[in-house]
């Protein structure tokens, strides 16, 4: 079963020449035992664009993220990042190349402070990660940058709280700030707004719009209003395969999409 129609070809969005492809997936497939969770998925993620990956529960969105970031090895297919073949690369190395993800379930370091959480991300580019002989005070050189990042997401007053003590929504905000601390070239966000309060959703949407000016963003999001507002290009996944692709107007008017997804979730 393959996706049909004009939207079949990946990267078929407006003005492809103006932007360059930074992350591609070709014929991506992943089997779990006899079950094929992801099949025949092709993606082109563009620099300075927000790309949404949507689809009903269990469609395989998180699995695609795991494949792209190499947390899972694809059964077959090919992934390239910035023209490098990363299909067989270790996940940490992929992250060091500039493809950084967030997780569907909030992933902070719960028993570290908010500031320490951000600093973990800053330590590696700052070359302050292997020194087992230096005192912790050496990490203070990262504080200014860390506070800047925290201020950009409105967490500056909580810098000394344990991450575990933050509300769920604020943890997600911290996670995004931590991800941004690495200054990634491609950002993969798995339902970044899930569980967030209304004002945080607005703030994070603004933040994503801002950071997407200088990097590629691929995000899974169930909130279709956010998708409509924020995303330049949308890929709809169903049962592991691409059902439709295009901008919001194209996708939301697609009959199959209406049946498979929006019919149940919209309004």
């Amino acid at each position, binding site marked *: 079963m393959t996706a049909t129609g004009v939207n079949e070809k990946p990267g078929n969005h407006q003005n492809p020449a103006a932007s360059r492809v930074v992350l591609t997936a070709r014929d991506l497939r992943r089997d779990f035992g006899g079950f094929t969770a992801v099949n025949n998925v092709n993606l082109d993620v563009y620099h300075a664009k927000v790309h949404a990956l949507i689809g009903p529960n269990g469609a395989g969105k998180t699995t695609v993220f795991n494949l792209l970031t190499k*947390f899972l090895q694809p059964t077959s297919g090919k992934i390239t990042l910035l023209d490098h073949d990363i299909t067989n690369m270790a996940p*940490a*190395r992929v*992250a060091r190349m500039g493809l950084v993800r967030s997780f569907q379930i909030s*992933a902070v370091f719960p028993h570290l402070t908010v500031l320490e959480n951000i600093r973990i991300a800053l330590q590696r580019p700052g070359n302050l990660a292997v020194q*087992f002989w230096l005192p912790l005070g050496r990490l203070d050189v990262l*504080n200014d940058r860390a506070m800047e990042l925290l201020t950009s997401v409105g967490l500056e007053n909580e810098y000394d709280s344990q991450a575990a003590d933050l509300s769920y929504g604020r943890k997600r905000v911290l996670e995004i700030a931590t991800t941004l601390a690495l200054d990634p070239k491609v950002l993969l966000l798995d339902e970044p707004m899930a569980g967030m309060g209304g004002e945080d959703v607005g703030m994070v949407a603004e933040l994503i719009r801002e950071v997407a000016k200088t990097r590629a963003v691929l995000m899974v999001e169930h909130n279709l209003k956010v998708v409509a507002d924020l995303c330049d290009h949308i890929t709809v996944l169903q049962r592991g395969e691409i059902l439709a692709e295009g901008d919001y107007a194209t996708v939301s008017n697609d009959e199959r999409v209406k049946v498979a997804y929006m019919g149940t979730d919209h309004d």
Partner: protein
Amino acid sequence: MTEITMTPETRQSAHRIQLALLSVLIIGLVIAPFVLYPVFLMKVLCFALFASAFNLLLGFTGLLSFGHAAFFGGAAYFTAHAVKEWGFPPEAGILLGVVGAAFMGLIIGFFAIRRQGIYFAMITLALSQMFFFFCLQSEFTKGEDGLQGVPRGHLLGFIDLSQPLNMYFFVLAVFAIGVFMVWRIVHSPFGMILRSIRENENRAISLGYSVNLYKLAAFVMSAALAGLAGGLKALVFQFATLTDVAWQMSGEVILMTLLGGIGTIFGPIFGAAFVVTVQNYLSTTGFPVTVLTGLIFIVCVLVFRRGIVGEFNASRLAAKLGLRSRN
């Protein structure tokens, strides 16, 4: 960004109190051999260092090794052999024990870190049992007899370690250096990464850390420090035997660490002191020690999971003293 400068200040006052407590502990340890039996105290210090080394892995990296006896007992054999058979001075003998334990840590760690949780523990147990059987069969360990009559020798050629007080202060110094090293590693940029791995390994990977290398480094450091304790113990008791490499020893160090409080600097020290004291006391009564250790273990897991020091740190008194643990 003014508030940020407050944090180091409040932490500094906490540090001052911690330093004061530390001084009390050190003064106590300096006076102790004049009040208590030095060999007993040295045994406590050796196990306290062993448990601290173990805690570097369990408490601060989140890896439960069930094979640390191999490093502790292995180093005891290496040191004993080097001193007795090759005539090494004590400091060189201990160094050899440390290097040997680190090397074993590299090999066992290399295989173990590929797996997680219970599988990690099982691989460490299996490999340390292989080492146990090697020691049982091998010529150089003298089998069931062990290496007996290991001379303590002269430290740096002129300090006679057969004098109990000289030996005691040597052990105390090595213990202090060892615990300081654990403290330094934990409170370092590297230690922060270890803690992040303990907290959320996948997140650490997604931030670009090759966590297996960090885990292996921590494993080798922990093994080397366990070896330091083992080598020291061989000189204190002047023998190295199979008990030190047996799996029960791996279990004992887990008990000490859990009892004292994992993830705290002082927990393993208190835990070791408690267990060694109880064992010493019971050995004169004929009460089966294993029954009691088992009971203590159950009580510990059921009632105070944080261990002695962990519970104290979580108490109001500790909060007042600014000691609230942040781990």
